[in-house]
Protein backbone atom coordinates (compact mmCIF):
# COMPACT_ATOMS: atom_id res chain seq x y z
CA UNK A 1 0.00 0.00 0.00
CA UNK A 2 1.30 3.46 -0.88
CA UNK A 3 2.12 5.90 1.88
CA UNK A 4 0.21 8.98 2.83
CA UNK A 5 2.30 12.05 2.08
CA UNK A 6 2.44 15.76 2.68
CA UNK A 7 3.54 18.43 0.24
CA UNK A 8 4.80 21.71 1.67
CA UNK A 9 5.02 24.94 -0.34
CA UNK A 10 7.33 27.26 1.56
CA UNK A 11 7.23 30.19 1.06
CA UNK A 12 4.17 31.42 -0.84
CA UNK A 13 5.38 34.07 -3.28
CA UNK A 14 3.96 37.34 -4.62
CA UNK A 15 1.82 38.06 -1.57
CA UNK A 16 2.29 40.37 1.42
CA UNK A 17 3.92 38.48 4.28
CA UNK A 18 5.25 35.02 5.20
CA UNK A 19 3.33 31.79 4.84
CA UNK A 20 3.50 28.21 3.75
CA UNK A 21 1.01 25.69 2.43
CA UNK A 22 0.77 22.05 3.47
CA UNK A 23 -1.02 19.52 1.27
CA UNK A 24 -1.85 16.12 2.78
CA UNK A 25 -2.12 13.25 0.30
CA UNK A 26 -3.79 9.92 0.94
CA UNK A 27 -2.46 6.49 -0.07
CA UNK A 28 -3.73 6.98 -3.63
CA UNK A 29 -1.91 10.28 -4.00
CA UNK A 30 -5.14 12.28 -3.81
CA UNK A 31 -5.22 15.47 -1.76
CA UNK A 32 -7.35 14.91 1.32
CA UNK A 33 -6.53 18.08 3.26
CA UNK A 34 -4.72 21.38 2.81
CA UNK A 35 -3.67 24.15 5.15
CA UNK A 36 -2.51 27.69 4.65
CA UNK A 37 -0.12 28.45 7.50
CA UNK A 38 0.83 31.97 8.45
CA UNK A 39 4.23 31.77 10.02
CA UNK A 40 4.83 35.30 11.22
CA UNK A 41 3.78 37.07 14.38
CA UNK A 42 3.98 40.70 15.46
CA UNK A 43 1.69 41.51 18.36
CA UNK A 44 0.63 45.13 17.80
CA UNK A 45 -2.42 44.62 20.01
CA UNK A 46 -0.16 43.88 22.95
CA UNK A 47 2.63 46.40 22.70
CA UNK A 48 0.30 49.37 22.23
CA UNK A 49 -1.01 48.81 25.77
CA UNK A 50 -0.02 51.74 27.96
CA UNK A 51 0.34 54.19 25.07
CA UNK A 52 -1.82 57.35 24.88
CA UNK A 53 -4.91 56.85 22.70
CA UNK A 54 -3.85 59.85 20.57
CA UNK A 55 -0.82 57.91 19.35
CA UNK A 56 -2.89 55.01 18.10
CA UNK A 57 -3.56 56.13 14.52
CA UNK A 58 0.15 56.70 13.86
CA UNK A 59 1.15 53.53 15.68
CA UNK A 60 -1.43 51.40 13.90
CA UNK A 61 -0.46 52.78 10.49
CA UNK A 62 2.90 51.07 11.04
CA UNK A 63 1.18 47.69 10.82
CA UNK A 64 1.37 47.83 7.05
CA UNK A 65 3.35 49.55 4.31
CA UNK A 66 0.69 48.78 1.70
CA UNK A 67 -2.49 49.87 3.46
CA UNK A 68 -1.40 52.16 6.32
CA UNK A 69 -4.25 54.52 5.38
CA UNK A 70 -6.86 51.87 6.18
CA UNK A 71 -5.41 51.38 9.65
CA UNK A 72 -5.19 55.15 10.11
CA UNK A 73 -8.86 55.55 9.26
CA UNK A 74 -10.17 52.67 11.37
CA UNK A 75 -7.96 53.71 14.27
CA UNK A 76 -8.95 57.38 14.04
CA UNK A 77 -12.62 56.35 13.95
CA UNK A 78 -12.10 54.29 17.11
CA UNK A 79 -10.50 57.39 18.69
CA UNK A 80 -13.41 59.56 17.48
CA UNK A 81 -15.62 57.19 19.45
CA UNK A 82 -13.42 57.61 22.53
CA UNK A 83 -13.77 61.38 22.19
CA UNK A 84 -17.48 60.98 21.41
CA UNK A 85 -17.22 63.69 18.77
CA UNK A 86 -18.85 64.16 15.40
CA UNK A 87 -16.08 65.14 13.05
CA UNK A 88 -16.58 68.07 10.62
CA UNK A 89 -18.25 67.07 7.32
CA UNK A 90 -15.22 68.15 5.28
CA UNK A 91 -12.93 66.04 7.43
CA UNK A 92 -15.11 63.03 6.74
CA UNK A 93 -14.99 63.69 2.99
CA UNK A 94 -11.24 64.13 3.08
CA UNK A 95 -10.87 60.84 4.93
CA UNK A 96 -13.02 59.23 2.26
CA UNK A 97 -10.71 60.62 -0.46
CA UNK A 98 -7.71 59.32 1.43
CA UNK A 99 -9.25 55.87 1.74
CA UNK A 100 -10.30 55.66 -1.90
CA UNK A 101 -6.81 56.60 -3.07
CA UNK A 102 -5.47 53.89 -0.82
CA UNK A 103 -7.83 51.27 -2.24
CA UNK A 104 -6.88 52.24 -5.80
CA UNK A 105 -3.14 51.98 -5.23
CA UNK A 106 -3.36 48.79 -3.17
CA UNK A 107 -5.61 47.07 -5.71
CA UNK A 108 -3.25 48.17 -8.50
CA UNK A 109 -0.32 46.58 -6.66
CA UNK A 110 -2.19 43.33 -6.23
CA UNK A 111 -3.49 43.06 -9.76
CA UNK A 112 -0.69 44.51 -11.85
CA UNK A 113 2.44 43.72 -9.86
CA UNK A 114 1.53 40.44 -8.15
CA UNK A 115 -1.19 38.66 -10.15
CA UNK A 116 -0.84 39.96 -13.71
CA UNK A 117 2.09 37.58 -14.44
CA UNK A 118 -0.34 34.67 -13.92
CA UNK A 119 -3.11 36.33 -15.90
CA UNK A 120 -0.96 37.51 -18.79
CA UNK A 121 1.63 34.74 -19.07
CA UNK A 122 -0.50 31.86 -17.84
CA UNK A 123 -0.37 29.62 -14.78
CA UNK A 124 2.18 27.28 -16.39
CA UNK A 125 4.60 29.99 -17.49
CA UNK A 126 8.31 29.71 -16.78
CA UNK A 127 8.68 30.79 -13.14
CA UNK A 128 11.72 32.84 -14.13
CA UNK A 129 9.39 34.96 -16.27
CA UNK A 130 6.38 35.04 -13.95
CA UNK A 131 7.11 38.47 -12.58
CA UNK A 132 6.88 42.13 -13.44
CA UNK A 133 9.74 41.87 -15.92
CA UNK A 134 7.90 39.13 -17.79
CA UNK A 135 4.82 41.36 -17.93
CA UNK A 136 6.66 44.39 -19.24
CA UNK A 137 8.29 42.26 -21.90
CA UNK A 138 5.02 40.76 -23.12
CA UNK A 139 2.71 43.72 -22.63
CA UNK A 140 4.55 46.95 -21.77
CA UNK A 141 1.33 48.93 -22.00
CA UNK A 142 -0.19 46.86 -19.22
CA UNK A 143 2.92 47.34 -17.08
CA UNK A 144 2.83 51.09 -17.70
CA UNK A 145 -0.84 51.19 -16.76
CA UNK A 146 -0.15 49.34 -13.52
CA UNK A 147 2.61 51.72 -12.60
CA UNK A 148 0.52 54.76 -13.50
CA UNK A 149 -2.50 53.58 -11.52
CA UNK A 150 -0.48 52.83 -8.41
CA UNK A 151 1.27 56.17 -8.74
CA UNK A 152 -2.10 57.88 -9.09
CA UNK A 153 -3.23 56.62 -5.69
CA UNK A 154 0.12 57.14 -4.01
CA UNK A 155 0.38 60.73 -5.17
CA UNK A 156 -3.05 61.58 -3.78
CA UNK A 157 -1.99 60.06 -0.46
CA UNK A 158 1.24 62.05 -0.57
CA UNK A 159 -0.54 65.32 -1.37
CA UNK A 160 -3.00 64.87 1.47
CA UNK A 161 -0.84 63.10 4.02
CA UNK A 162 2.57 64.55 3.27
CA UNK A 163 4.12 61.19 2.41
CA UNK A 164 3.21 57.98 0.61
CA UNK A 165 3.85 55.54 3.41
CA UNK A 166 2.74 55.92 7.02
CA UNK A 167 1.26 59.40 6.71
CA UNK A 168 -0.09 60.75 10.01
CA UNK A 169 -2.62 63.16 8.57
CA UNK A 170 -5.74 61.39 9.84
CA UNK A 171 -6.10 62.20 13.53
CA UNK A 172 -8.69 61.71 16.26
CA UNK A 173 -11.42 64.26 15.52
CA UNK A 174 -10.74 64.68 11.81
CA UNK A 175 -7.63 65.43 9.79
CA UNK A 176 -4.69 67.65 10.65
CA UNK A 177 -4.68 69.92 7.57
CA UNK A 178 -7.30 71.01 5.02
CA UNK A 179 -6.97 70.35 1.32
CA UNK A 180 -5.48 73.24 -0.64
CA UNK A 181 -7.03 74.39 -3.88
CA UNK A 182 -3.74 73.77 -5.67
CA UNK A 183 -3.61 70.15 -4.50
CA UNK A 184 -7.28 69.63 -5.32
CA UNK A 185 -6.76 70.95 -8.85
CA UNK A 186 -3.62 68.89 -9.38
CA UNK A 187 -5.38 65.70 -8.28
CA UNK A 188 -8.34 66.45 -10.54
CA UNK A 189 -5.98 66.71 -13.51
CA UNK A 190 -4.93 63.07 -12.97
CA UNK A 191 -8.48 61.69 -12.93
CA UNK A 192 -9.01 61.31 -16.71
CA UNK A 193 -5.91 59.17 -17.22
CA UNK A 194 -6.71 56.99 -14.20
CA UNK A 195 -10.26 56.52 -15.46
CA UNK A 196 -9.05 55.55 -18.92
CA UNK A 197 -6.61 53.02 -17.45
CA UNK A 198 -9.27 51.47 -15.24
CA UNK A 199 -11.63 51.10 -18.19
CA UNK A 200 -9.11 49.54 -20.55
CA UNK A 201 -7.69 47.28 -17.83
CA UNK A 202 -11.16 45.92 -17.20
CA UNK A 203 -11.59 45.29 -20.92
CA UNK A 204 -8.25 43.47 -20.98
CA UNK A 205 -9.05 41.36 -17.91
CA UNK A 206 -12.49 40.36 -19.11
CA UNK A 207 -10.91 39.38 -22.41
CA UNK A 208 -8.61 36.91 -20.64
CA UNK A 209 -11.33 35.14 -18.66
CA UNK A 210 -12.03 32.54 -21.33
CA UNK A 211 -8.49 31.21 -20.90
CA UNK A 212 -9.14 30.53 -17.24
CA UNK A 213 -12.43 28.67 -17.33
CA UNK A 214 -10.93 25.72 -15.48
CA UNK A 215 -9.36 27.93 -12.82
CA UNK A 216 -12.58 29.90 -12.39
CA UNK A 217 -14.37 26.63 -11.74
CA UNK A 218 -11.92 25.49 -9.07
CA UNK A 219 -10.39 28.60 -7.48
CA UNK A 220 -12.39 28.95 -4.31
CA UNK A 221 -15.62 28.23 -6.14
CA UNK A 222 -17.81 27.10 -3.25
CA UNK A 223 -20.78 28.33 -1.24
CA UNK A 224 -20.01 30.71 1.60
CA UNK A 225 -21.32 33.85 3.21
CA UNK A 226 -20.11 37.28 2.08
CA UNK A 227 -19.77 40.36 4.26
CA UNK A 228 -19.25 44.02 3.43
CA UNK A 229 -20.27 47.52 4.43
CA UNK A 230 -23.13 49.14 2.54
CA UNK A 231 -24.83 52.51 2.63
CA UNK A 232 -28.47 52.85 3.68
CA UNK A 233 -29.50 52.37 0.05
CA UNK A 234 -27.41 49.21 -0.30
CA UNK A 235 -24.67 51.01 -2.19
CA UNK A 236 -20.94 50.31 -2.07
CA UNK A 237 -19.02 52.30 0.52
CA UNK A 238 -15.57 52.13 2.07
CA UNK A 239 -15.78 54.65 4.90
CA UNK A 240 -19.02 54.28 6.78
CA UNK A 241 -22.22 52.28 6.79
CA UNK A 242 -23.80 49.13 8.13
CA UNK A 243 -22.67 45.58 7.56
CA UNK A 244 -24.60 43.26 5.30
CA UNK A 245 -24.14 39.51 5.07
CA UNK A 246 -25.42 37.55 2.09
CA UNK A 247 -25.35 33.86 1.28
CA UNK A 248 -24.27 31.88 -1.77
CA UNK A 249 -27.69 32.38 -3.37
CA UNK A 250 -27.36 36.13 -3.03
CA UNK A 251 -29.99 36.27 -0.30
CA UNK A 252 -29.49 38.71 2.55
CA UNK A 253 -28.78 36.77 5.74
CA UNK A 254 -28.30 39.80 7.97
CA UNK A 255 -28.55 43.50 7.22
CA UNK A 256 -28.06 46.75 9.04
CA UNK A 257 -25.53 45.22 11.41
CA UNK A 258 -23.73 47.85 13.45
CA UNK A 259 -19.95 47.40 13.12
CA UNK A 260 -19.66 48.61 16.71
CA UNK A 261 -21.37 45.38 17.78
CA UNK A 262 -19.11 43.11 15.74
CA UNK A 263 -18.48 40.84 18.75
CA UNK A 264 -22.17 39.92 18.78
CA UNK A 265 -22.04 38.27 15.37
CA UNK A 266 -18.37 37.60 14.56
CA UNK A 267 -16.24 35.02 16.32
CA UNK A 268 -12.53 34.27 16.05
CA UNK A 269 -10.89 30.88 16.41
CA UNK A 270 -7.21 30.18 16.93
CA UNK A 271 -5.74 27.14 15.19
CA UNK A 272 -2.49 25.63 16.52
CA UNK A 273 -0.91 25.57 13.05
CA UNK A 274 -1.18 29.25 12.18
CA UNK A 275 -0.66 32.70 13.72
CA UNK A 276 -3.64 33.90 11.69
CA UNK A 277 -6.96 33.70 13.53
CA UNK A 278 -10.01 32.41 11.66
CA UNK A 279 -13.11 34.58 11.82
CA UNK A 280 -16.61 33.16 11.41
CA UNK A 281 -20.23 34.30 11.53
CA UNK A 282 -21.36 33.31 15.03
CA UNK A 283 -24.99 32.39 14.32
CA UNK A 284 -23.80 29.61 12.00
CA UNK A 285 -20.93 28.52 14.26
CA UNK A 286 -17.44 27.32 13.35
CA UNK A 287 -16.61 26.41 10.63
CA UNK A 288 -20.06 26.66 8.99
CA UNK A 289 -19.98 30.40 9.54
CA UNK A 290 -17.27 30.75 6.89
CA UNK A 291 -17.55 34.09 5.12
CA UNK A 292 -15.51 36.12 2.65
CA UNK A 293 -14.68 39.81 2.69
CA UNK A 294 -12.93 42.15 0.26
CA UNK A 295 -13.73 43.12 -3.33
CA UNK A 296 -15.64 39.96 -4.26
CA UNK A 297 -17.74 40.10 -1.10
CA UNK A 298 -18.35 43.85 -1.30
CA UNK A 299 -19.65 43.57 -4.85
CA UNK A 300 -21.76 40.56 -3.92
CA UNK A 301 -23.44 42.39 -1.05
CA UNK A 302 -23.80 45.76 -2.81
CA UNK A 303 -26.88 46.64 -4.82
CA UNK A 304 -25.10 49.44 -6.64
CA UNK A 305 -21.86 51.38 -6.70
CA UNK A 306 -23.36 54.81 -7.14
CA UNK A 307 -21.11 55.95 -9.98
CA UNK A 308 -22.07 55.49 -13.64
CA UNK A 309 -19.27 53.39 -15.10
CA UNK A 310 -18.79 51.24 -12.02
CA UNK A 311 -22.54 50.59 -11.92
CA UNK A 312 -22.44 49.30 -15.49
CA UNK A 313 -19.58 46.99 -14.59
CA UNK A 314 -21.30 45.85 -11.40
CA UNK A 315 -24.40 44.84 -13.32
CA UNK A 316 -22.25 42.78 -15.66
CA UNK A 317 -20.33 41.32 -12.70
CA UNK A 318 -23.52 40.16 -11.03
CA UNK A 319 -24.28 38.14 -14.17
CA UNK A 320 -21.04 36.14 -13.97
CA UNK A 321 -22.64 33.38 -11.95
CA UNK A 322 -26.19 32.59 -11.05
CA UNK A 323 -26.99 33.98 -7.60
CA UNK A 324 -23.81 35.21 -5.88
CA UNK A 325 -20.44 35.27 -7.64
CA UNK A 326 -18.76 32.40 -5.82
CA UNK A 327 -15.41 31.87 -7.53
CA UNK A 328 -12.54 33.62 -5.81
CA UNK A 329 -10.89 33.94 -9.21
CA UNK A 330 -13.31 36.83 -9.72
CA UNK A 331 -11.63 38.81 -6.95
CA UNK A 332 -9.43 40.18 -9.75
CA UNK A 333 -12.33 41.59 -11.73
CA UNK A 334 -13.99 42.89 -8.58
CA UNK A 335 -10.74 44.65 -7.70
CA UNK A 336 -10.69 46.48 -11.02
CA UNK A 337 -14.35 47.48 -10.73
CA UNK A 338 -13.55 48.93 -7.33
CA UNK A 339 -10.63 50.87 -8.81
CA UNK A 340 -13.02 52.28 -11.39
CA UNK A 341 -15.45 53.20 -8.63
CA UNK A 342 -12.69 54.83 -6.58
CA UNK A 343 -11.61 57.04 -9.49
CA UNK A 344 -15.17 58.12 -10.24
CA UNK A 345 -15.98 58.73 -6.59
CA UNK A 346 -12.76 60.67 -6.07
CA UNK A 347 -13.79 63.04 -8.82
CA UNK A 348 -17.19 63.56 -7.20
CA UNK A 349 -15.69 64.26 -3.79
CA UNK A 350 -12.99 66.58 -5.11
CA UNK A 351 -15.67 68.66 -6.83
CA UNK A 352 -17.76 68.87 -3.67
CA UNK A 353 -18.27 72.56 -2.78
CA UNK A 354 -17.29 71.89 0.85
CA UNK A 355 -14.05 70.07 0.14
CA UNK A 356 -11.77 73.09 0.59
CA UNK A 357 -13.28 74.11 3.92
CA UNK A 358 -10.63 74.72 6.57
CA UNK A 359 -12.80 73.36 9.40
CA UNK A 360 -11.42 69.84 9.43
CA UNK A 361 -10.95 68.88 13.06
CA UNK A 362 -13.07 68.62 16.18
CA UNK A 363 -11.36 68.89 19.54
CA UNK A 364 -12.32 67.07 22.71
CA UNK A 365 -10.91 65.11 25.56
CA UNK A 366 -11.91 61.46 25.97
CA UNK A 367 -15.53 61.10 26.93
CA UNK A 368 -15.78 57.33 26.60
CA UNK A 369 -13.55 54.54 27.84
CA UNK A 370 -14.21 52.25 24.89
CA UNK A 371 -14.24 52.98 21.17
CA UNK A 372 -14.68 50.94 17.99
CA UNK A 373 -13.81 52.06 14.47
CA UNK A 374 -14.53 50.13 11.30
CA UNK A 375 -13.89 50.77 7.63
CA UNK A 376 -13.51 48.82 4.41
CA UNK A 377 -9.81 48.28 3.75
CA UNK A 378 -8.73 47.10 0.29
CA UNK A 379 -8.84 43.48 1.45
CA UNK A 380 -12.08 43.74 3.42
CA UNK A 381 -13.71 44.97 6.60
CA UNK A 382 -11.30 46.25 9.22
CA UNK A 383 -12.14 46.71 12.91
CA UNK A 384 -10.14 48.58 15.56
CA UNK A 385 -11.44 48.27 19.12
CA UNK A 386 -9.77 50.09 22.04
CA UNK A 387 -10.33 50.43 25.77
CA UNK A 388 -8.61 53.22 27.69
CA UNK A 389 -8.25 54.20 31.32
CA UNK A 390 -9.15 57.54 32.91
CA UNK A 391 -5.78 58.94 31.79
CA UNK A 392 -6.40 58.13 28.14
CA UNK A 393 -3.90 55.27 28.09
CA UNK A 394 -4.68 52.15 26.07
CA UNK A 395 -5.54 49.24 28.33
CA UNK A 396 -6.75 46.76 25.71
CA UNK A 397 -6.88 46.61 21.93
CA UNK A 398 -8.39 44.18 19.47
CA UNK A 399 -7.95 44.32 15.71
CA UNK A 400 -9.93 42.20 13.28
CA UNK A 401 -8.23 42.28 9.91
CA UNK A 402 -9.67 41.38 6.54
CA UNK A 403 -7.16 38.63 5.84
CA UNK A 404 -8.16 36.81 9.04
CA UNK A 405 -11.78 36.96 7.96
CA UNK A 406 -10.81 35.28 4.70
CA UNK A 407 -8.68 32.65 6.43
CA UNK A 408 -11.26 29.86 6.35
CA UNK A 409 -12.05 30.61 2.73
CA UNK A 410 -8.38 30.70 1.76
CA UNK A 411 -7.83 27.32 3.36
CA UNK A 412 -10.84 25.84 1.62
CA UNK A 413 -9.69 27.37 -1.66
CA UNK A 414 -6.22 25.88 -1.37
CA UNK A 415 -7.82 22.49 -0.76
CA UNK A 416 -10.10 22.85 -3.77
CA UNK A 417 -7.29 23.88 -6.10
CA UNK A 418 -4.98 21.17 -4.79
CA UNK A 419 -7.66 18.48 -5.21
CA UNK A 420 -8.25 19.65 -8.75
CA UNK A 421 -4.62 19.90 -9.87
CA UNK A 422 -2.33 17.86 -7.58
CA UNK A 423 -1.93 14.21 -8.43
CA UNK A 424 0.61 11.68 -7.24
CA UNK A 425 3.96 12.45 -5.78
CA UNK A 426 5.41 14.76 -8.41
CA UNK A 427 5.31 18.47 -7.78
CA UNK A 428 5.05 20.48 -10.99
CA UNK A 429 5.43 24.21 -11.27
CA UNK A 430 1.96 24.62 -12.75
CA UNK A 431 0.42 22.88 -9.76
CA UNK A 432 2.46 24.85 -7.29
CA UNK A 433 1.71 28.12 -8.98
CA UNK A 434 -2.04 27.50 -9.06
CA UNK A 435 -2.04 26.76 -5.34
CA UNK A 436 -0.24 30.07 -4.81
CA UNK A 437 -2.38 31.91 -7.33
CA UNK A 438 -5.60 31.17 -5.48
CA UNK A 439 -4.06 32.70 -2.38
CA UNK A 440 -3.00 35.72 -4.45
CA UNK A 441 -6.59 36.17 -5.61
CA UNK A 442 -7.49 37.08 -2.03
CA UNK A 443 -4.50 39.48 -1.88
CA UNK A 444 -3.81 38.51 1.73
CA UNK A 445 -1.73 40.88 3.79
CA UNK A 446 -0.14 38.78 6.48
CA UNK A 447 1.78 41.68 7.95
CA UNK A 448 -1.59 43.26 8.63
CA UNK A 449 -3.37 40.21 9.85
CA UNK A 450 -0.78 38.74 12.17
CA UNK A 451 1.01 41.97 12.85
CA UNK A 452 4.29 40.31 11.88
CA UNK A 453 7.32 41.60 9.94
CA UNK A 454 8.88 40.43 6.74
CA UNK A 455 8.49 39.23 3.21
CA UNK A 456 6.18 36.67 1.74
CA UNK A 457 7.48 33.31 0.76
CA UNK A 458 6.01 29.88 -0.11
CA UNK A 459 6.87 26.38 1.10
CA UNK A 460 5.37 23.03 -0.08
CA UNK A 461 6.27 19.79 1.74
CA UNK A 462 5.51 16.17 0.86
CA UNK A 463 5.32 14.01 4.04
CA UNK A 464 4.70 10.32 4.64
CA UNK A 465 2.16 9.18 7.20
CA UNK A 466 4.86 9.15 9.85
CA UNK A 467 5.39 12.83 9.18
CA UNK A 468 8.73 12.47 7.40
CA UNK A 469 9.36 14.97 4.62
CA UNK A 470 9.63 13.15 1.27
CA UNK A 471 9.83 16.21 -0.94
CA UNK A 472 9.94 19.91 -0.33
CA UNK A 473 9.94 23.03 -2.45
CA UNK A 474 10.92 26.34 -0.87
CA UNK A 475 11.02 29.82 -2.23
CA UNK A 476 12.43 32.95 -0.60
Amino acid at each position, binding site marked *: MAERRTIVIDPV*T*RIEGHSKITLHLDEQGQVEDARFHVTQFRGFEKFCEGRPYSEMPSLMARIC*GICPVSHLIASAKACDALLAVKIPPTAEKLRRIFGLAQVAQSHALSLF*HLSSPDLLLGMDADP*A*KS*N*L*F*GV*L*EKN*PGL*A*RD*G*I*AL*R*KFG*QEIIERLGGK*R*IHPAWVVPGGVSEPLSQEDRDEILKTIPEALAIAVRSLAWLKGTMERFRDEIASFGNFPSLFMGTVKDDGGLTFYDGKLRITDSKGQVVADGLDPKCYFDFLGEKVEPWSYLKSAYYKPKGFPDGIYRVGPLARLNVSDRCGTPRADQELAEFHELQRSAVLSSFHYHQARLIEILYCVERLEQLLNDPEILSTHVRASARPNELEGIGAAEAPRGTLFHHYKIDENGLIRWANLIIATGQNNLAMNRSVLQVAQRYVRGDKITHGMLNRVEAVIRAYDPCLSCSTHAAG*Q*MALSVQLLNREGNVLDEVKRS
Partner: protein
Amino acid sequence: MSDSVLIIAYGNPLRSDDGIAWRVAEEISRTSSAATTLCVHQLTPELAKDISRPSAVIFIDSSCDGAPGEVRCNAVYADRSSENFSHSLAPDQLLSICKQLYESEPCGFLVSIAGECFDHGEILSASVMSALPQAVAAVKKLLERRSLLQA
Protein backbone atom coordinates in the same frame (compact mmCIF):
# COMPACT_ATOMS: atom_id res chain seq x y z
CA MET B 1 14.48 64.40 -20.93
CA SER B 2 15.55 67.47 -18.96
CA ASP B 3 18.99 68.44 -17.72
CA SER B 4 17.88 68.00 -14.14
CA VAL B 5 19.26 65.51 -11.66
CA LEU B 6 17.12 63.38 -9.37
CA ILE B 7 18.52 62.03 -6.12
CA ILE B 8 16.76 58.98 -4.71
CA ALA B 9 17.78 58.13 -1.16
CA TYR B 10 16.44 54.82 0.03
CA GLY B 11 16.45 52.94 3.30
CA ASN B 12 14.60 52.74 6.59
CA PRO B 13 15.39 55.57 9.00
CA LEU B 14 14.00 53.46 11.85
CA ARG B 15 16.73 50.87 11.25
CA SER B 16 19.79 52.76 12.49
CA ASP B 17 22.44 52.93 9.75
CA ASP B 18 19.89 52.04 7.08
CA GLY B 19 18.74 55.64 7.48
CA ILE B 20 22.05 57.19 6.38
CA ALA B 21 20.82 57.74 2.81
CA TRP B 22 17.97 59.97 4.03
CA ARG B 23 20.42 61.99 6.13
CA VAL B 24 22.66 62.54 3.12
CA ALA B 25 19.72 63.59 0.97
CA GLU B 26 18.46 65.99 3.63
CA GLU B 27 21.88 67.59 3.83
CA ILE B 28 22.06 67.94 0.05
CA SER B 29 18.58 69.50 -0.03
CA ARG B 30 19.59 71.96 2.69
CA THR B 31 22.79 73.08 1.04
CA SER B 32 22.24 72.70 -2.69
CA SER B 33 19.52 73.39 -5.23
CA ALA B 34 21.25 71.43 -7.95
CA ALA B 35 18.99 68.43 -7.71
CA THR B 36 15.55 67.23 -6.68
CA THR B 37 15.65 64.75 -3.83
CA LEU B 38 13.32 61.91 -3.02
CA CYS B 39 13.51 59.81 0.16
CA VAL B 40 11.87 56.39 -0.02
CA HIS B 41 11.99 53.16 1.94
CA GLN B 42 12.73 51.01 -1.07
CA LEU B 43 12.90 51.19 -4.84
CA THR B 44 9.53 50.33 -6.35
CA PRO B 45 8.42 50.13 -10.00
CA GLU B 46 6.53 53.43 -9.75
CA LEU B 47 9.86 55.25 -9.51
CA ALA B 48 10.65 54.21 -13.09
CA LYS B 49 8.41 57.01 -14.30
CA ASP B 50 10.10 59.53 -12.01
CA ILE B 51 13.57 58.68 -13.26
CA SER B 52 12.47 58.84 -16.90
CA ARG B 53 12.41 62.66 -16.79
CA PRO B 54 15.85 63.79 -15.47
CA SER B 55 19.10 63.34 -17.36
CA ALA B 56 20.78 61.75 -14.37
CA VAL B 57 19.75 59.93 -11.25
CA ILE B 58 21.87 59.48 -8.16
CA PHE B 59 20.85 56.64 -5.87
CA ILE B 60 22.02 56.77 -2.25
CA ASP B 61 21.88 53.63 -0.15
CA SER B 62 23.44 52.02 2.87
CA SER B 63 25.39 48.85 2.30
CA CYS B 64 26.14 45.71 4.27
CA ASP B 65 29.47 45.34 2.45
CA GLY B 66 32.70 47.10 3.28
CA ALA B 67 34.19 48.61 6.39
CA PRO B 68 31.64 50.63 8.40
CA GLY B 69 31.58 54.17 7.09
CA GLU B 70 33.22 53.31 3.77
CA VAL B 71 31.75 55.45 0.98
CA ARG B 72 31.65 54.10 -2.55
CA CYS B 73 30.53 55.75 -5.74
CA ASN B 74 29.82 53.75 -8.87
CA ALA B 75 28.04 54.21 -12.16
CA VAL B 76 24.99 51.98 -12.59
CA TYR B 77 23.41 50.89 -15.85
CA ALA B 78 20.13 49.38 -16.90
CA ASP B 79 20.47 45.67 -16.23
CA ARG B 80 17.76 43.08 -15.89
CA SER B 81 19.98 40.07 -15.41
CA SER B 82 18.41 39.64 -12.00
CA GLU B 83 14.70 39.54 -12.63
CA ASN B 84 13.51 38.39 -9.24
CA PHE B 85 11.05 40.97 -8.07
CA SER B 86 8.72 40.83 -5.17
CA HIS B 87 8.42 44.23 -3.53
CA SER B 88 11.60 46.14 -4.15
CA LEU B 89 14.13 46.64 -6.93
CA ALA B 90 17.83 47.34 -7.31
CA PRO B 91 18.95 50.54 -9.11
CA ASP B 92 19.98 48.65 -12.25
CA GLN B 93 16.58 46.95 -12.41
CA LEU B 94 14.80 50.25 -12.01
CA LEU B 95 16.86 51.77 -14.80
CA SER B 96 16.00 48.76 -16.92
CA ILE B 97 12.26 49.23 -16.37
CA CYS B 98 12.64 52.92 -17.18
CA LYS B 99 14.42 52.12 -20.42
CA GLN B 100 11.91 49.50 -21.46
CA LEU B 101 8.71 51.31 -20.55
CA TYR B 102 9.59 54.95 -21.05
CA GLU B 103 12.47 54.71 -23.56
CA SER B 104 14.63 56.85 -21.35
CA GLU B 105 18.14 56.13 -20.12
CA PRO B 106 19.25 58.63 -17.51
CA CYS B 107 22.85 58.37 -16.33
CA GLY B 108 22.85 56.40 -13.11
CA PHE B 109 25.14 56.58 -10.10
CA LEU B 110 25.06 54.78 -6.80
CA VAL B 111 26.61 56.29 -3.71
CA SER B 112 26.67 53.68 -0.98
CA ILE B 113 27.74 53.96 2.63
CA ALA B 114 28.69 50.80 4.48
CA GLY B 115 26.66 50.44 7.65
CA GLU B 116 27.52 48.81 10.93
CA CYS B 117 24.25 48.51 12.81
CA PHE B 118 20.83 47.84 11.26
CA ASP B 119 18.87 47.24 14.47
CA HIS B 120 15.77 49.20 15.44
CA GLY B 121 16.67 52.80 16.20
CA GLU B 122 17.03 56.25 14.70
CA ILE B 123 20.65 56.89 15.70
CA LEU B 124 23.50 56.31 13.28
CA SER B 125 26.53 54.42 14.53
CA ALA B 126 29.62 56.55 15.14
CA SER B 127 31.48 55.21 12.10
CA VAL B 128 28.57 55.94 9.77
CA MET B 129 27.86 59.32 11.34
CA SER B 130 31.44 60.34 10.76
CA ALA B 131 31.13 59.30 7.10
CA LEU B 132 28.18 61.64 6.52
CA PRO B 133 30.31 64.59 5.27
CA GLN B 134 32.22 62.31 2.93
CA ALA B 135 29.01 60.89 1.49
CA VAL B 136 27.56 64.36 1.02
CA ALA B 137 30.79 65.41 -0.69
CA ALA B 138 30.62 62.40 -2.99
CA VAL B 139 27.11 63.33 -4.11
CA LYS B 140 28.05 66.99 -4.56
CA LYS B 141 31.05 65.97 -6.62
CA LEU B 142 28.71 64.08 -8.94
CA LEU B 143 26.43 67.10 -9.16
CA GLU B 144 29.38 69.33 -10.03
CA ARG B 145 30.53 66.83 -12.61
CA ARG B 146 27.12 66.96 -14.19
CA SER B 147 27.28 70.73 -14.23
CA LEU B 148 30.71 70.65 -15.83
CA LEU B 149 29.56 68.17 -18.44
CA GLN B 150 26.59 70.34 -19.31
CA ALA B 151 28.56 73.63 -19.38
